[in-house]
Every structure is written in structure tokens, then in C-alpha cells.
């Protein structure tokens, strides 16, 4: 695993998230559930807890966008880049953007599984950079895994716990 330069982290364990808009690829409940489940991946192994808000600015603002979307890192259309997220800080820090030129799915190999992509991006939102361990969630390339059989690799767990410590339960 690796962390960003300077090892940025949230200075609190209770974080908020907001789903700013939705992809037309999936139903609203499917997106809500995928995002919730993706954050839970990290909450399961750390003291971090996530609360959803529907108004105002959350620590992690989640949005779907195409091409140029106002952060100087435009998306590239179908395939290629699927999403990106920003390391912990105020403002855009922690935010996760998903390329809506992809066909996001609930759990199909026909397009990127939103849960898997989101769980990876939230790793960045919390302070993890890319891992060179094949099979780790934080490995930079996407590969399909059945979401019902997903488990966080030991490399990912060591990485996030090096930032936030062990779960308190």
C-alpha cells in the first residue's frame, strides 16, 4: 500500500457524505446502496463512521460527470479513466467523481461495478494512494469481482489502519 505525500488524513472519525447527482445507468436505490456499501468496506476495519447528508457541503461529495467537469482533470469518455477522488483536505478534498460515460452496474461484468469503483475511490478520499499489489482494492486497474464475494485484502487493511488505527469494536 502507499499513502499520499505528507500522509494527509481526516482529523476526525465521523465523516459526512453527500450524493450530489445520479447516473442514469442504475436506479437511485441501487446507487445509494452501492455507495453505502463501499464506505462500509472502510468503516469495517477502522474507527471511521459515515453519515449521509442531503444538503450542504459534506466531507465527501460524490458526483457523476463527463469530460470537463470543473476540476482541471477532465474525464476521457468511455473506457480509460473510470473515476477519480481527492485526498483528505477541505474543499474538494475527499470528493469522488465518477465518469458517467461509463456504464456503471450493480454487479455485472458488462460494465464497471459501481460498488468496486467507489470503494477504491473512497480509499483515496481517506488518504490511500495506489498499491502495487495485484488483487488489492487500491491497485489502479479495474477488474471484475462479484460484489457479494468481495473482501478487502490484507494490504488494503494494513494501509488504512496505518492512517486511522484499528476498528474500535
Amino acid at each position, binding site marked *: 500500500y502507499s499513502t499520499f505525500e505528507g500522509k494527509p488524513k481526516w482529523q476526525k472519525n465521523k465523516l459526512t457524505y453527500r450524493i450530489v447527482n445520479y447516473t442514469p445507468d442504475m436506479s437511485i436505490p441501487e446507487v445509494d446502496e452501492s455507495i453505502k456499501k463501499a464506505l462500509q468496506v472502510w468503516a469495517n476495519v477502522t474507527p471511521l463512521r459515515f453519515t449521509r447528508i442531503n444538503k450542504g457541503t459534506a466531507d465527501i461529495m460524490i458526483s457523476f460527470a463527463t469530460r470537463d467537469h470543473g476540476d482541471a482533470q477532465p474525464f476521457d469518455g468511455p473506457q480509460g479513466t473510470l473515476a477519480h477522488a481527492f485526498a483528505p483536505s477541505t474543499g474538494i478534498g475527499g470528493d469522488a467523481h465518477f465518469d458517467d460515460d461509463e456504464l456503471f452496474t450493480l454487479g455485472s461484468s458488462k460494465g464497471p461495478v459501481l460498488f468496486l469503483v467507489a470503494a477504491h475511490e473512497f480509499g483515496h478520499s481517506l488518504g490511500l494512494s495506489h498499491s502495487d499489489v495485484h488483487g488489492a482494492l487500491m491497485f489502479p*486497474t479495474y477488474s471484475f469481482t462479484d460484489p457479494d464475494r468481495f473482501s478487502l485484502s490484507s494490504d488494503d487493511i494494513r494501509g488504512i489502519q496505518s492512517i486511522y488505527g484499528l476498528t474500535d469494536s
Partner: protein
Amino acid sequence: GPILKPADKNKAIARDYLRKFYNLENLMGTTHFRPEEEIDPPSDKLKEMQKFFGLKVTGTLNKETLEVMKKPRCGVPDVAA
């Protein structure tokens, strides 16, 4: 516009990839007398990428490296900018 030969197109893909994810500087503003698509991707950056992905470290653009570059991926760079 000019139609690129396949090999040139692959070089352009590689350069774009290394620019986005391996902090390869843009060549704009530097002196080159050939189109960018004809310039080989720098060996040191290719080696860095190949090492990260556990590929054979050759420093040259081969099929295996290009295949990894074409995979869908996260847009966050693999190396610190």
C-alpha cells in the same frame, strides 16, 4: 488532420498515459522537430510503470505494457506529482 500509423498511435497512447499517471512532463515549449507521436516514450518513465505493475522491466513499449495501459483504471496518478 494527419492519419497516424498504428505504431505512432501506440506511442501517443503511451505518452498520454505516462503524462497522466507517471508525471511525464508535457513536451510543449521544448524543442522537437518531429510530431510528438513519433517520439518514443521515455525509457525511465516506462520502467517506472512496468515496475509498478509487475511487468518485465524493459524500458521499451511492448505489447504487454500497452495492454496494461489500455485497461480501465482509476484517474489518480500512480506517482506523486
